[in-house]
């Protein structure tokens, strides 16, 4: 269950960002990109996040996980292909080994959606 550790890392990174803002904003959603060719299970990550966010600055924050497929590039055929996880990783056309992974190894905090409290947002009105 290393998703627990991953979630810890996620929360620390987001907290660093949050504290570095001039006015700590209200975060509404954290977007992650998780590749299929990683050892991370999105369901477990979601579960760990929901447990760990309680009673923190992330209470009520949503975690959106976008999974990216495993895509490899075959240098022999000069084209992308989708290896079949658990069965076949070599190029289905020429059997050339999977050497160049173009997608699927991502484990990334992509972006954060946030807003400011209503009284703060008034200060942002351009005509004031």
């Amino acid at each position, binding site marked *: 269950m290393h998703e627990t550790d991953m979630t810890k890392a996620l929360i620390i990174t987001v907290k660093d960002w949050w504290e570095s803002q001039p006015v700590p904003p209200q975060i509404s959603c954290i977007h*992650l990109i998780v590749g299929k060719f990683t050892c991370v299970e999105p369901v477990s990550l979601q579960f760990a996040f929901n447990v760990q966010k309680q009673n923190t600055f992330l209470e009520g924050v949503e975690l959106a996980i976008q999974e990216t497929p495993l895509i490899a590039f075959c240098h022999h055929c000069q084209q992308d292909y989708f290896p079949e996880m658990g*069965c076949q990783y070599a190029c289905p056309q020429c059997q050339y080994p999977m050497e160049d992974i173009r997608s699927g190894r991502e484990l990334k905090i992509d972006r954060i959606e946030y807003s400011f409290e209503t009284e703060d947002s008034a200060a942002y009105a351009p005509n004031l």
Partner: protein
Amino acid sequence: MHQTFDAALGINLLHANQEGADHNREHFDEWGIICLNVMSSPGAGKTVLLERTLAALSSELKIAVIEGDMTTELDADRLRKYNVPVIAINTGRSCHLDSKMVAGGIHQLSYQYNPAEFDLVLVENVGNLVCPAEFEVGEHAKVALLSLTEGEDKPLKYPVMFQEADCLLITKMDLAPHLDVDVDRIVANVRQMNPHVAIVPVSAKTGEGLDAWFDWVRFQIKRSAPAKQQLSVVH
């Protein structure tokens, strides 16, 4: 009005671990040490491999071991018989070593010994084919073990570990006559995703293949030697 903003971060989830791993590697490089991260499922034979390695190489190389174990020091005690420093790290509930834990081990080593005297640090990771593959600890190369009894399909089922490995030891080769396991199939499955990995079939019991493994270890150290000399010129 309630306005929503968006901040692009693009930060790796394992950013902190990766930074720690890079820092550990800088220490190893500074001291001219090669670090190997030894990984496998539980019971594949990591500890006995290290026992054989220490017995064969500790007279020609100065070796230290960082031993990851969830709760016990059983493995560490086995290796201490070879009169090399063995630093035991209990990972608790964590199923892998991370760079911070190994940093603790490195600091302990540098506190008790002169680290520049060492050539090789062997990190024995927690038995697990999944998580250790994602958490770099500062190693120069990854060594994976797969015992014959685990079957041909494991590289296909746990591909990240086998795709990341620089050396794969197929262990317990002495059992081959008793099992319906096709070694060529294991090799082919691994090569599908990692064509350049060094594959060495070994048996700690009969000694088969161990010389080839020792040579691979020696080669890693030799390969780093020019970098070591360059470093000493700089300082």
